[in-house]
């Protein structure tokens, strides 16, 4: 499999507080990779580093063979997209929200119209183009955010607990969308979640984060049946509670 990310000895500190340390990892194109761990272990910070929203304190980050990714931040970020736990909605229509990423890339109007309609169809919001985005329900807003994130076909989609605030029906819809994005568009998905069941349903490979360290990276099957690290076993079995 082709590498998309290679991370070596990555670390991040805020002042004296070390949030992440010695992260070594490869993420491959087209996979669904999940960071799993309890709240507050650095999952969001790691996603923000991968999205280049934050700069690492130590280590190197190579994106698609480019070891100058950090220096060429603006160009590299254009190939990524990230979704937060709660989507930020622009105070305008659903169409304008979804079209945003294309507009800043100076795509022509006709293409924008077609791509927005296609993206809304993928997330099950066809026909909602003219609706005010602020009037959408929580689940619909998150789905609109997915459409906005994929409309310009990023190479990688980073998802930070995208279903944390949603009801089971909407969780199922979002998970279907995640599978569809990977299967139909070939987008690499990197998901941060503390929900073991969701990780089991979605992930190809899993990295377990504890106290800012990546203690184990393996296939989903291996992690859930025979984890190497005793702490992974303890977390999966609900014995580590933070």
């Amino acid at each position, binding site marked *: 499999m082709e590498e998309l990310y290679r991370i070596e000895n990555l670390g991040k500190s805020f002042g004296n507080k070390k949030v992440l340390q010695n992260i070594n990892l490869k993420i491959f194109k087209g996979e669904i990779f999940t960071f799993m761990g309890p709240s507050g272990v650095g999952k969001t910070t790691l996603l923000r580093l991968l999205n280049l*929203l934050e700069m690492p304190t130590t280590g190197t980050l190579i994106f698609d063979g480019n070891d100058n990714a950090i220096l060429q931040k603006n160009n590299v970020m254009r190939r990524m997209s990230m979704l*937060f736990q709660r989507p*930020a909605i622009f105070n305008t229509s659903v169409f304008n929200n979804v079209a945003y990423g294309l507009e800043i890339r100076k795509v022509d109007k006709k293409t924008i119209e077609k791509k927005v309609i296609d993206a809304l169809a993928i997330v099950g919001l066809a026909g909602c183009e003219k609706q005010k985005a602020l009037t959408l329900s929580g689940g619909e807003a998150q789905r609109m955010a997915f459409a906005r994130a994929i409309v310009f076909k990023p190479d990688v989609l980073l998802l930070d607990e995208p279903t944390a605030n949603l009801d089971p029906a909407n969780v199922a819809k979002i998970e279907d969308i995640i599978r569809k994005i990977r299967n139909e568009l070939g987008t690499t998905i990197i998901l941060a979640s503390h929900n073991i069941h969701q990780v089991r349903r979605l992930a190809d490979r899993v990295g377990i984060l504890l106290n800012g360290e990546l203690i184990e990276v393996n296939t989903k099957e291996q992690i859930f049946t025979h984890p190497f690290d005793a702490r992974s076993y303890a977390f999966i079995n609900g014995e580590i509670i933070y």
Partner: protein
Amino acid sequence: MSTADFLVQGIIKAFELIFSLNPYIMSITGVSIQVSGMATALATLTAIPLAFVISFMKFWGKQALITLINTGLGLPPVFVGLFVFLMIVPVGPLGFLNIVYTKEAMILAQYILITPIITGISLAAIKAVPKLIIETVYTLGGTEKDAAVATLKEARFGIITAVLAGLGRALAEVGAILIVGGNIARTGSVGRIGEGLSETRTLTTAITSETSKGDISTSIALGIILICLVLSVNVLANYFQRRD
């Protein structure tokens, strides 16, 4: 004549002056709108970019600038009037401009008074835009310029409210423009109600002079127009606040 009769007659006469589009009243209204409108436009051109620079850029003296703006929110108009007057008198540093007792001097005084108001309220509107909106712009591939534009769009109603608040303050201001403008009417209105044409006389300064002359009906007419103008501005500001 009782006080009530006196007032009723004053109000009736005031409406006659307004509905007959009395040239004196209309010229005063025109000067008010012209001076306050121009001061607001210039202050907006300064205040909004300034609010964005303060919000998005790191620079030495930023906190001092914010303190200066906050201080400016409560500037006493007469002090600003005196300050501008001392600057523009022939022996002052801006004496070469030769603008004492002109509309330009009044615009300058109002500009100084309302720029901090528009900047301060715009700053608050920009700060109220969630950080997540700006981060979302970056995650979608936007640059710092895109983030600033998105913030402007998100804060638009708050910024419009700021501009309207500045305009309202300018229209209602009296002390500063009285000092630097001189409250001049071209042919004077002494002796006859509603006579003359305004040079630097505005609704507020005219009310003070007409009242002191005892021309109550003209004062009431000017007051009604002033209240209508300020009320319209506030209704608009409320409308945009509700949309925010």
